[in-house]
């Protein structure tokens, strides 16, 4: 049974916001920009990360600009276990130009609010260290607390459990992760389960050769692929037609990493997306034109 209904929280723009903040929970101690990694702050160490993520999307006569500013704080409880809190503030600008006969009506609206907060824990259960390299596996567990702000919140509690793999050397690093997220029932509606997956490859481009002594700052080139697949939303036992789907991003980026801070920027482009529903044709035209991410991490 399918019902052609788009609930408020399944609006594609809101779906994108949820994705942004899911990606924003990526490891703070690690080098990937949009992905997670099996690395933690040192015991007692605190990492503060501020990001600014700008997204522009178009659909028919609608243009949505969104700027999200998630602030994340990570604390190393032990060298293997860390806690993370993410509080995202978001600005939304929506421009519509509907055609009424031969006339075009222009509407411009602004809004801002806190999006859903996230609390996460990550435990490194396998660590194999070598001279100048490390291989680690970690289990991240995340709980999302909805702020229920219209247009900014997924309106339901959710829990996510995943798996992260990291191989890091002084020359390059590879990270791969996936997470399964399940949602609470809210107002009789249960969002479909979501699986997120990402892979990241980073190369040090400067300094080209490492000096014998000291810890120089690194300039890294970062290639990432992030994606998510979500089942349809269920209401009263019936699937809602215009819900669920999948999206995959390609995200090249640059990163400057020193001992105390990291400055990074990446550009995200969707390379594949398909949204479910009766209006699939229209939804397929929903394209995220551009997404830019700028961030800074400070180690305290």
């Amino acid at each position, binding site marked *: 049974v399918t019902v052609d209904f788009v609930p408020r929280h399944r609006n594609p723009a809101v779906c994108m916001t949820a994705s942004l903040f899911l990606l924003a929970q990526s490891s703070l101690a690690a*080098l990937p920009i949009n992905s997670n990694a099996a690395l933690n702050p*040192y*015991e007692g160490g605190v990492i503060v990360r501020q990001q600014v993520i700008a997204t522009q999307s178009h659909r028919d006569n609608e243009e949505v600009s969104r700027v999200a500013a998630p602030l994340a704080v990570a604390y190393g409880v032990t*060298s293997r276990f860390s806690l993370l809190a993410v509080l995202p503030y978001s600005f939304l600008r929506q421009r519509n130009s509907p055609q009424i006969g031969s006339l075009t009506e222009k509407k411009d609206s602004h809004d801002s609010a806190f999006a859903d907060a996230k609390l996460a824990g990550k435990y490194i259960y396998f*660590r194999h260290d070598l*001279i*100048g390299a*490390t291989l680690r596996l970690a289990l991240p567990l995340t709980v999302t607390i909805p702020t229920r702000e219209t247009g900014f919140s997924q309106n339901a509690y959710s829990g996510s459990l995943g798996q992260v793999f990291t191989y890091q050397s002084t020359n390059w690093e590879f990270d791969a992760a996936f997470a399964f997220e399940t949602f609470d029932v809210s107002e009789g509606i249960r969002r479909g389960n979501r699986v997120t997956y990402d892979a990241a490859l980073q190369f040090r481009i400067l300094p080209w050769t490492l000096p014998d002594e000291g810890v120089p700052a690194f300039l890294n080139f970062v290639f990432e692929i992030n994606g998510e697949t979500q089942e349809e939303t269920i209401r009263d036992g019936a699937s809602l037609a215009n819900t669920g789907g999948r999206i995959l991003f390609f995200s090249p980026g640059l990163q400057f990493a020193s001992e*105390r801070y990291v400055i990074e920027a990446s550009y995200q482009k969707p390379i594949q997306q398909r949204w479910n529903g009766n209006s699939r044709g229209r939804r397929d035209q929903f394209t995220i034109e551009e997404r830019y991410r700028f961030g800074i991490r400070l180690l305290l």
Partner: protein
Amino acid sequence: MLRYKLTIGLLAVALLTGTTLFSQGGVEREIVASVKGLACPFCAYGIERQLKEIPAVSRVEVSIKTGIVRIFLKPGESVTRHAIEKAVDKAGFTLADLTGLEDSDSPEEIKE
């Protein structure tokens, strides 16, 4: 007479300086640790922080290329292998080797 006074003065200064240095046990002592898992600059800061929390440690120098961490002890101070191993582990790395420990760095006495 002036020459005599000057010589006495210089001797006194030399004696005092020498005594002070001797009482502090001379200069800093260096211990060299080989650390596994050290691979990025943002991760290296933790090992400096953790090792500097050991009271006997005056400064730390890290080579990210070789994974060698030079630990300089305050004059007259000692440290145990256990304390260094623990600090390296707290930073999220593995101690591979340690050279430069002396008999005074008693393994039974844990100084952290």
